[in-house]
């Protein structure tokens, strides 16, 4: 069984061996890769020390996309921060709304109604699917195939269409609200969503048929960039890279939020910890996401989708000009904003790229005193040196793509 499920010791040994394949001459040359390099997925810069083609040392340089999100948040009310969180990980922006709203609800003690929780779960999982399909296209393009990128983008379009139907926007959704979501499911969403999630697993099978046994992909990905579970803990690498190293850690299971404790799904785990297994984990996750969405649609409860909480959530827009109480609530929420008690909370959720945490310290007012977004890409970008040192330059492209870094998420 050890070939399929290596122990930690075996994996460590394999990691060391895989990084001693090429002889070194001892002459070191320094090369700057990025920030405009196409395989750097944004504006990430890595300064490489090369010995021939072997990477001896890496110094990651980030910050080219820094927008001062945390400073901006300190000057805004809790409602006004939601559109800013979209811009963190702009490839799965609803998940960022979701994480932020979970943290604020924990701070304020707001209960989300069941329908709101289910709609959040559906939107989050749609984002996860869109993110993973996009990841796959870019990952394969980095390894030299253009056509497959177009195939992935075509299929991602079906999911984005659903998200557009649900939220009104394709990328920056701003759909989460404190106490629920902005809108109910639109008419006809159920039917269209079922069509897409019935059809996607077939597409995933097709992707796997193209990629999984492709000799070129196999050679580029198998046994490359091995990262053991110990390394993952030390460098706070979470999400699919951690699960590909044989750790069944998924916050949707371990610290359930929204409707994840009411649906049945499996945590995708693989055991080799290399680029190939990260691909397998993500493909499994898309299938599980389809399963989660189907269960949510089947069991979607009736009732309000936004908490009827006068002091913390916005009223329904259609009531604002008809009902005086709703109008007062709207004025209160927009001009003053919800008040939070004094205290601090930390809430982490499972974003497509890893664990995304939000720390809020409140001094008891309408604005947070300090917000920190603990985004997965920040730590994944930091973990590049231990991931690639000893590997070849061409493998670095594959490894960097396999950990899925988005620079909006990294630089904040």
């Amino acid at each position: 069984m050890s070939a399929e499920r290596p122990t930690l010791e075996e994996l460590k040994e394999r990691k060391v061996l895989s990084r001693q394949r090429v002889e070194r001459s001892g002459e070191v040359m320094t090369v700057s890769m990025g920030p405009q390099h196409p395989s750097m997925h944004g504006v990430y810069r890595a300064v490489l020390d090369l010995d021939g083609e072997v990477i001896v040392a890496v110094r990651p340089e980030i910050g080219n996309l820094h927008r001062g999100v945390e400073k901006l948040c300190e000057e805004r009310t809790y409602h006004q921060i939601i559109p800013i969180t979209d811009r963190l990980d702009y490839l799965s922006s609803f998940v960022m709304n979701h994480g932020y709203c979970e943290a604020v609800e924990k701070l304020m003690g707001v209960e989300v109604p069941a329908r709101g929780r289910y709609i959040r779960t559906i939107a989050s999982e749609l984002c996860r699917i869109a993110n993973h399909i996009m990841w796959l296209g870019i990952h394969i393009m980095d390894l030299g195939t253009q056509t497959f990128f177009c195939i992935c983008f075509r299929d991602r379009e079906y999911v984005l269409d659903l998200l557009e139907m649900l939220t009104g926007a394709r990328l920056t959704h701003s759909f989460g609200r404190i106490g629920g979501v902005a809108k109910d499911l639109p008419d006809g969403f159920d039917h269209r969503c079922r069509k897409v999630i019935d059809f996607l697993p077939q597409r995933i099978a097709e992707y796997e048929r193209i990629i999984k046994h492709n000799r070129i992909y196999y050679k580029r990905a198998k046994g490359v960039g091995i990262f053991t579970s110990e390394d993952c803990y030390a460098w706070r690498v979470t999400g699919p890279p951690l699960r590909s190293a044989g750790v069944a850690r998924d916050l949707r299971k371990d610290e359930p939020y929204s409707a994840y404790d009411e649906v049945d799904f499996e945590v995708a785990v693989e055991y080799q910890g290399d680029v190939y297994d990260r691909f397998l984990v993500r493909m499994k996750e898309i299938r599980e996401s389809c399963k989660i969405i189907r269960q949510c649609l089947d069991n979607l409860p009736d009732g309000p989708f936004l908490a009827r909480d006068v002091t913390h959530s916005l009223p329904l827009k259609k009531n604002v000009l008809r009902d005086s109480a709703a109008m007062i609530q709207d004025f209160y929420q927009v001009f003053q904003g919800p008040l939070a008690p004094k205290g601090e909370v930390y809430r982490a959720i499972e974003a497509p790229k890893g664990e995304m945490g939000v720390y809020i310290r409140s001094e008891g007012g309408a604005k947070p005193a300090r917000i920190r977004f603990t985004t997965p890409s920040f730590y994944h970008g930091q973990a590049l040196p231990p991931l690639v040192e000893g590997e070849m330059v061409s493998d670095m492209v594959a490894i960097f793509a396999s950990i899925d870094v988005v620079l909006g998420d990294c630089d904040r």
Partner: protein
Amino acid sequence: MNAAIQLEERFGARLLESVEFRSELTYVVASSDWVEVLRFCKEAPGLAFDQLDCLLGDHLPERTAAPFEVVAHLVSHVYGHRLRVKTSLTEGQSLPTVTGLWPSAGFDEREAWEMFGIVFDGHPDLRRLLTVEDFEGYPLRKDFPLQGTVGGRIRTDLRGKI
């Protein structure tokens, strides 16, 4: 919580304050105990906090005696529990690094240094992380303005020369 009992047994009065809010446990320690407490959290078998979820700086200007704070969030993969450990610092006071315990603290400490001016002794590479190299000031301090031209000036004197 088992972790709380173990920590209180080991450190007793050296844990200056403990707060529980929304079922999250926070301990405040003195800055001289910072590394020792965190090392115990990581290495004690009953605690086993093997991952540093995040480490951040904070500024509380109304607390004039010790206006800076460093907050560490720990998580254990063995037991699944979480813990928050905090320490307070005065202006200009430095704190020993924890990169030896969790290498992932490297970027966090660099960020806390550039945003708040908290120096981490023994950090292997304490440079600016998110802002440009010649940036002046500590942007996340409360007295730093939200709008302005600090560090963001446009070099008109170089026009036509590059």
